[in-house]
Structure formats: C-alpha cells, structure tokens
C-alpha cells in the first residue's frame, strides 16, 4: 500500500510499504477513506519529538471501512464505517475503566521508553513516535487498529466523512480543553492558538456556556475564522498588542476565568524571551518553547484554571511557579481521552449544534501529503486543516 512516511526532520515522503495484517486477536484492519494532518504532526515533522525512525508512517486522525477483523473481535463487523480515536486503549485496565483512555496501561509496548523520559507512560498513539508505541499511522491506504471493539465508533449515514474524521482527535481535544476550565455562568475563557484545536476549544467553550470567549493568535485568517465560524467574541493579535494588558482591560482587571493553551511546544513569543527559547531549543537545552503557557498562567484569574491541550514533549524553562502557587491557579492537562467524547460529540453533530468540518481548508490526495505538510507548517494559502483522501 501507499503511506506517508517520516524521513527525517522536515521531510515526509509517500512510499510503498507492506499492507497491514492482524497481529493481536482483537485487531481490525480498516481501509482509510479520510485522514488528516494534525497540528501535532507538525511537531514530528519539524523534528521536535524524540524517538522517530525513518520510515515511520505518520498520522493519527483516520476513518474508513473495516475490511478484516481478528478472531476475538465481537462488535465491529467487516463493512462498518468507523472513525478511530487517536489514543490506543484496551478498555480493561484501571485507567480505561475510569475513562482515561489516553492513559491506557496496556497499549504502549514501548512503555519503558516513555517511562524513562516521563516517569510513567501514557497510552500508545497511532503514528506518534516509538516512545508512544511504534504504531503505524493513518496517513495511508490501510491501517491496523488494535482493540477494534474499544476504539472505533460506528458512524450513522447522515454524518459525512469530513464531519466524522474530526472526532478522531481535534474536536474532542478542543472540547476537553474547554471542559477542563470548569466553565460557570458569566465566565470569560481565553484561548491561545487559533489552529484547528483552538477553533474547537473556542466553539466548545461556547457550547459549554461561556459568557465570552477571547481568542489569541497572530494570523489574521485564523483570527477571522475564530470570530466568524468558531464563535469567539473578541480576538487578540499578539503581534500587535500586549496580550496580558488586553486581557486585563477586557476583564475588569480580573483576568480570564479559564485559559486554554492550544499552542504547545512551538510557541512563538515576540521579543527577547522568544529569542531565548528559540536558542535554547535549537541547542537542545530545552525541548519545548512554552511562551503561550507562561502567558496563560500569568493571565488567568486568581484561583482559576489553565487547561493545557497543546502538545509538550519534555522540559521547559522559566516556568512561573510563583504565580501559580501564590494565586491558587490550577493546571489541568492531558492527551485527550477521546473515547469518552466521541459519542456525545457525534450526537451534537447529528443535532446540528455544530458542523466540525468548518475548519477544513484543503482537500488533497494521499500522494500530495508532503505538499500538505509544507503549506500547513508555513501557514501558506490560509491553510487551517488539510484532509487527505487515500484512493482518490
């Protein structure tokens, strides 16, 4: 089959690789109809996530048709049209039973590598480095999906591919980012980053009853989409104004009641501190550039929550611990426990409360994946979300 493979920093290539096969008895194989490039794929693409190997198949947002099932698969049938959550979860361990599927204790066969780097291991993830399992990703014609009865969600006919594939990662991730802010009536929520996940955090904050949502980015087309499609009430271009001062002014000096970091480890920070982070990161003295996170912590109202859904990989500098501790600020974070959000969010799509396909700006063939990475990473052509259609 054809698959989009990582071939070193800033280099992906569509190659011919062996077809997937059933390895564990609860696996299924799906023929992929729609798959996406995620903002977090850009961290892999740009070489910031350790333990990638040449030839790794990229991609963790996928949906398609089940074409083969392992002998212990009971619910899922050949021919089912399913969307696949990006964390791989067994459904039987303590974390899975508590609904924290991105912390599945059994799905990462390379847990020892992740434990060495992070202390303990999260779940395995499709196409997201060897420390998260070494599972082939979904930017391919076919994919092997472990725990077929736990992850894949069977889709109704009235939901389109382009709506459904957003349930694999970014809609639930944005939703969890908003949910972790414990939104109460009257709350103002600020969202750093108006990429696809940020757009869904904004939209979800509105769905969850936020009084006002403030969106922060530097690309006018992203800020425009936040206002016009996701429902942001106010947008801030951080290259044109001071975010902290603007937030203070907009909230009567209190600060936002919830801050969502939908940026992660490649934050751009204007001025000297930004240069400092870039230099330290390029010299491997700091894995992650945490500009947005620092600003979110300093900005949030006393006693409220900073919700981190942007991806971080390792260690950061100049963490404002004094602000966090003295002002009773809570940080909540995590890779999204996608499994528990897929059905409720599918219901919202079917009820017409939201059409998550609004973020899609580019539709391409699988063969054009390298072009998709290129324009997405450089924010060219007003690129927001690239979907790939294998078999077209």
């Amino acid at each position, binding site marked *: 089959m054809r698959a989009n493979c990582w071939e070193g920093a800033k280099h992906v290539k569509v190659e011919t690789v*062996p077809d997937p096969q059933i390895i564990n008895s609860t696996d299924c194989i799906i023929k992929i109809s729609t798959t996406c490039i995620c903002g977090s794929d850009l961290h892999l693409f740009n070489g910031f996530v350790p333990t990638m190997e040449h030839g790794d198949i990229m991609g963790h947002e996928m949906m398609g048709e089940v074409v083969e099932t392992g*002998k212990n698969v009971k619910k899922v049938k050949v021919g089912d049209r399913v969307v696949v959550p990006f964390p791989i979860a067994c459904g039987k361990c303590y974390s899975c039973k508590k609904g924290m599927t991105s912390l599945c204790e059994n799905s990462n*066969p390379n847990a020892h590598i992740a434990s060495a780097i992070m202390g303990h291991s999260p779940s395995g993830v499709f196409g997201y480095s060897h420390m998260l399992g070494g599972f082939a990703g979904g930017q391919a014609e076919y994919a092997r999906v472990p725990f077929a009865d736990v992850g894949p969600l069977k889709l109704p006919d009235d939901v389109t591919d382009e709506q459904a594939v957003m349930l694999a990662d970014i809609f639930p991730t944005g939703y969890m980012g908003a949910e972790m802010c414990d939104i109460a009536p009257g709350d103002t929520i600020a969202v750093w980053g108006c990429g696809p996940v940020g757009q869904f955090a904004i939209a979800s904050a509105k769905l969850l009853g936020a009084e006002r949502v403030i969106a922060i980015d530097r690309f006018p087309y992203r800020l425009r989409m936040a206002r016009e499609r996701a429902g942001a009430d106010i947008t801030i271009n951080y290259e044109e104004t001071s975010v902290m001062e603007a937030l203070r002014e907009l909230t009567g000096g209190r600060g936002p009641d919830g801050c969502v970091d939908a940026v992660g480890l490649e934050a751009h920070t204007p001025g000297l501190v930004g240069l400092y982070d870039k230099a330290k990161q390029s010299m491997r003295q700091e894995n992650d550039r945490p500009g947005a996170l620092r600003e979110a912590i300093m900005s949030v109202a006393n006693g409220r929550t900073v919700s981190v859904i942007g991806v971080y990989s390792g260690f950061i500098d100049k963490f404002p611990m004094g602000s966090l501790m003295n002002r009773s600020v809570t940080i909540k974070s995590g890779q999204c426990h996608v499994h528990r959000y897929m059905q409720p969010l599918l219901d919202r799509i079917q009820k017409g409360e939201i059409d998550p396909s609004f973020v899609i700006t580019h539709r391409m063939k699988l063969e054009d994946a390298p072009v998709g990475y290129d324009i997405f990473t450089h924010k060219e052509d007003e690129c927001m979300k690239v979907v790939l259609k294998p078999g077209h």
Partner: protein
Amino acid sequence: MATQQVPNRTRHDGSDGAQHRPMTRAPRNWKGAPDHYSETPDWKDGTTKFLGWFSIGLGLAEIFAPRAVAKLVGVSDEDEHVGTLRQFGVREIAAGLGILTRPKPTYWVWSRVGGDAIDLTWLTRRLRDSGEGNDRTKLLAAITAVAGITALDIMQGAKMTSEKLPSTGHDEGSFQVGKGDDGTVRLEAQVTVGASPQECYEFWKNLENLPRVVGHLESVRTLGEGRSHWKAKAPAGMSVEWDTETIEDRPNEYIAWHALEHEQVDNLGSVTFVPAPGDRGTEIHLEMEYHPRGGALGARIANVFKKLPQMELMMDLRRFKQLIELGEVVQSDATASRKTPHPAQPNASNELKSELRNR
C-alpha cells in the same frame, strides 16, 4: 544455537542441597528526623586544619615581617625580594582562610600545591643567583622544608579528592531501594494488575509460565519435588542453564525460589502478591538476585545479569499484566518485528516474530 551446559549434579541423597536465605527487604516504617538534623557539617581532619593555620601564620609573617622571613630562608633583603614575599603572603592568607572556612576545602588544599610550586621555583632561582647576599645553606634548608610541606599538601589534596562527601547520617527508618553490598545483582520491579491475588498467583505458581513474561528466560521445565530446570539467553547466541528449587510457597501471597547450592550461579527470586487499595487489583513485587559462585562460567553468567537493566524487569511485568488483563501481549508494528529497530510501518509476513505468524 550453542548451549553451554552447566555441570548438573543434582543431589539424590536427600540431603539439603539448598542454602536457605531470606530475601532482604528494607524496613518501611518511618521515624522522626535524625537528632543531628541541624548540625553544621564540617569534615576537616587535623592535617587540613594544620595546613590552614600554617598558611595563615606564614602569610602574616611574609606580609608583616618580610625581611625576617628573607633572612630565615637565606635570601638578601633587597626591595624586590621583600615585595615578592609580601605577594606570597597574600596568597598564603587567602589559602588559609579558604581552608579554615569552607566545610570541605579540597580546592583550597590543591591551591596550596600550586603555591608550593611557585615558592620552590622562586627559591631555586635565588639559589642560582650567585652571591648578592643569598645564603646557599639556608636556601637548601628552606627548599627541603617547602618540599616536605608540598608532599603533605599533595597527599592531603589527593585524599580529599578521593573522599566522598559524608552523608548527613544513615536513617534506619527511611525507605531505601535495595542494593547488593557484596557484588550481588539485585533487581526489583513492581506492577499493579487488575485481578485478584489468586488469579495472579495461579500464573506464577506454574514456573513454566515464566518465559512468557520474563524476556531473558528461554524456558523453565519443572522436574518435580519443587525443582525446575532454567535456561536463560546469554550474549552471542549462547545460553546458560541451571536447576532451581522452590523454597517458599504461600498460596496467593508469596513464591520464592533459588538455584541449587552446587550451581555456579546463585539465583534467588521471589514474587509477592499484595492486594492493592480500593478497586485497583493486586500489586506484584518481583525481586531477582544473581550472585556468581566462582569459576569463569559463574562470572560470565553474573555478567549476563549485570547487563539486565531494571527496565527489562519492568517490561516483563507489563507483559504479565497484559496476559492477565487482556489474555495476550500487545504488539505494535515496530515491536512485532524480528528486526530491530523496525519503523512504525507494517511488517512483511516473514519479518514478524515467529510466535505472531499465522494468526
């Protein structure tokens, strides 16, 4: 695969070939802070303190009575020499203060060695300056004295460099991760499994199951009467074999085994099953000890196990957890391959590990 058979002389005379040794475990009760908690640590010995005071004394003399010092060591009291001696005095005072005030002044003792070299060079030069009021006999005596002090400085510096900082004290009551004090390789790992102690115990009770989880074991064959024959992988395609016997078996709680006394590898192992709090299942505590009993083969075996990181035992226990909770070991495209490293892409059929083929 080449196999090195360890001479097998299993006793059949009924004598107790096993040497029972309980597995060690650190005490886990807590006590208060040690009494000396607030003491300021100071680990200078008498020699170090002497060197400090000697530096101060010599320094004061060189600064305030340079002409007397010049006379003592046999150099003329011309202004150039007096200036040099005063500079030496400042250096000596600095070294003396450093030695007396720092808790562990290794650096300052070595700085004295540097100063000694300068002094010796200077005195030797004066020895070569013919006449001009320099007293050859006194100079030779001074050089000998400085050389003696230099030797003392070097010895003390080397001693302090090799010394580790003493700890603030041993606390019997605190938890410690186990470490062999006699060359023993001791490994421990833990995992929590979502099953009852009984379910977990049933798996371990049959030692022949062990190679399914313990990565470096090739096979375990039970011989009856609590004895079993173990075979482990060694480097370069070799393997090592030995006989063990179960020394304790408390159903649903604890199993311990060890190698028979005559075997060249002294292997102790135990697994403890502890009910986990709440609805978390069972904690599995696995401990393994390997100790060579002499002989080239014994040393080689010990080497195999020394290279086994803690990580491997952790991987073993995660495999066990998967077998109990899921009934099989989870594989990714990368880990299912016989070839390592293998990229995260599907394997060709002939690349899969043999046990995964034809599923």
